[in-house]
């Protein structure tokens, strides 16, 4: 279907006098896996809560499958689930936590295999963990149980808020695989907020940057084919000593992504209406510490034609 799953129009959300979120237009296609990056307080969690219809925006509309929904639309909320940054487990056993969402949907008694399968997806042995109580789990295990409790619902939209914060690398990898399974197996749409850009780049199709509530790099991609540049051309601070015949051009980091074919990271930059891209090993992209939307400078041999 061509109609996007989400259509956001004129979204403004206030907590105080200043808007926490200001997104004039946004579309999320079905089956997309989108990453949200940005500093603390940039509006990532707010956007996720609004996409989950837990909060209604102060202004604007959020259409889900072409229709506006609100906190009072349980039917929409039952297809959409959000994993909170610090997930909360009910004061019950692990199995009862997994079965809770299914029970809400009136799917009677959850089949044991279903619950076991969800635990296996997040790398927890059902025999060992199924019997545990909510307080008998480490932080990373609790996070994975919470993710399994959402995967078992086979949600059409899976929203993850910092799923790897405070989680070790092997757990982060398990979380990545379990989340992507949702798209592979039942075509779920994912939106993932994270500070771990390396992890995010390996997980998602596109990273959108948020800064002060603005989407710094919303799709579509830059109109012109991107010119490849070398790392030496990119400056994080305004360069002073350029050398003869060279110019410095301010640019913005439009996006960070991961190219599956060669496993390299890709930094997209926009400067004076032209697109540039920089391909580097993922670790080096991480080493640059770039955030989407960030200001940087390019040093070029000549000023590009407008």
């Amino acid at each position: 279907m061509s109609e996007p799953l989400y259509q956001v129009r004129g979204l403004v959300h206030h907590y105080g006098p200043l808007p926490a979120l200001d997104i004039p237009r946004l579309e999320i296609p079905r089956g997309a896996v989108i990453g949200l990056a940005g500093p603390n307080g940039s509006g990532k969690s707010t956007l996720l809560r609004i996409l989950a219809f837990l909060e209604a925006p102060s202004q604007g509309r959020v259409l889900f499958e072409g229709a506006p929904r609100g906190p009072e639309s349980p039917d929409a909320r039952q297809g959409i689930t959000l994993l909170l940054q610090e997930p909360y487990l009910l004061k019950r056993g692990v199995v009862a936590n997994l079965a809770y969402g299914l029970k809400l949907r009136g799917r009677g008694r959850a089949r044991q295999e279903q619950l076991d399968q969800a635990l296996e997806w997040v790398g927890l042995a059902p025999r060992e963990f199924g019997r545990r109580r909510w307080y008998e789990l480490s932080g990373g295990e609790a996070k994975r149980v919470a993710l399994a409790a959402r995967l078992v619902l086979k949600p059409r939209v899976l929203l993850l808020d910092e799923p790897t914060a405070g989680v070790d690398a092997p757990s982060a990898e398990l979380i990545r695989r379990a989340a992507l399974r949702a798209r592979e197996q039942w075509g779920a749409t994912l939106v993932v907020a994270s500070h771990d850009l390396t992890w995010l780049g390996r997980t998602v199709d596109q990273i959108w940057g948020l800064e002060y509530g603005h989407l710094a790099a919303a799709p579509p991609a830059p109109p012109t084919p991107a010119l490849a540049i070398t790392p030496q051309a990119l400056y994080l601070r305004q360069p002073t000593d350029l050398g003869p015949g060279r110019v410095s051009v301010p640019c913005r980091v439009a996006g960070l992504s991961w190219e599956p074919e060669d496993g390299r990271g890709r930094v997209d930059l926009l400067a004076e209406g032209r697109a540039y891209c920089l391909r580097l090993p993922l670790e080096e992209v991480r080493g640059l510490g770039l955030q989407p939307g960030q200001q940087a400078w390019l040093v070029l041999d000549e000023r590009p034609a407008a």
Partner: protein
Amino acid sequence: MNYILEGLVQAFRLLARGDPETFSALEATVRSSSLAMLASLVLGLPLGFVLGHGRFRGRRLLRTLVDTCLALPTVLIGLVVYSFLSRRGPLGDWGMLFTLPGLAIGQAILALPVVMALTATAVEGLDRRLGLTLLTLGASRRQLALTTLWEARQGLLAAAVNAYGRVVTEVGIAMMVGGNIKWHTRTVTTAIALETGKGEFAQGIALGIILLGLALLVNLGLIRLRRGATP
């Protein structure tokens, strides 16, 4: 001071030989307090949830009023309920004065603020993420309320135990609204008051010990519920 020991012995003697007067008072106590607890829990749990969870104008003021009602004197409740239920009162036609259900009305009024205030406190004390989590799992409003109350079950149990303690030990309402009628509305507490008046201290203490035994039985019954709710 011998009567304390005597009272202890007497308590066992009364229970062992199945003293009809004692058992009648015990039965009146159990009946009226059970009715009162049922009513106060049915009303108090949802109201307490709304008070603790809801975000509406005047919530703080209402909260303060409910907390103030924790200090409602039983004699005042007795007086008001008496005046309503007496033949000339607005509810005189119900004919409930000096009956156990009438007495239970008064005791429910006593228990209601306790259940409401402690339920509200228990719900307020829950993790803020609970509500969001339930919504993200697709809970409706009703499911949200029920699960929230279940998550707070430890606190709700404390509310019920507290309210029960007040109801089962109060004497003002039982005396004024129940009327301390032998074989009918004489409860354990009004019987103790009577025995004290007669100078039968040992008998009074025996009844007091029996009342404590009842409370012990109730709390033993709740142990099972308590289990599994705490780490």
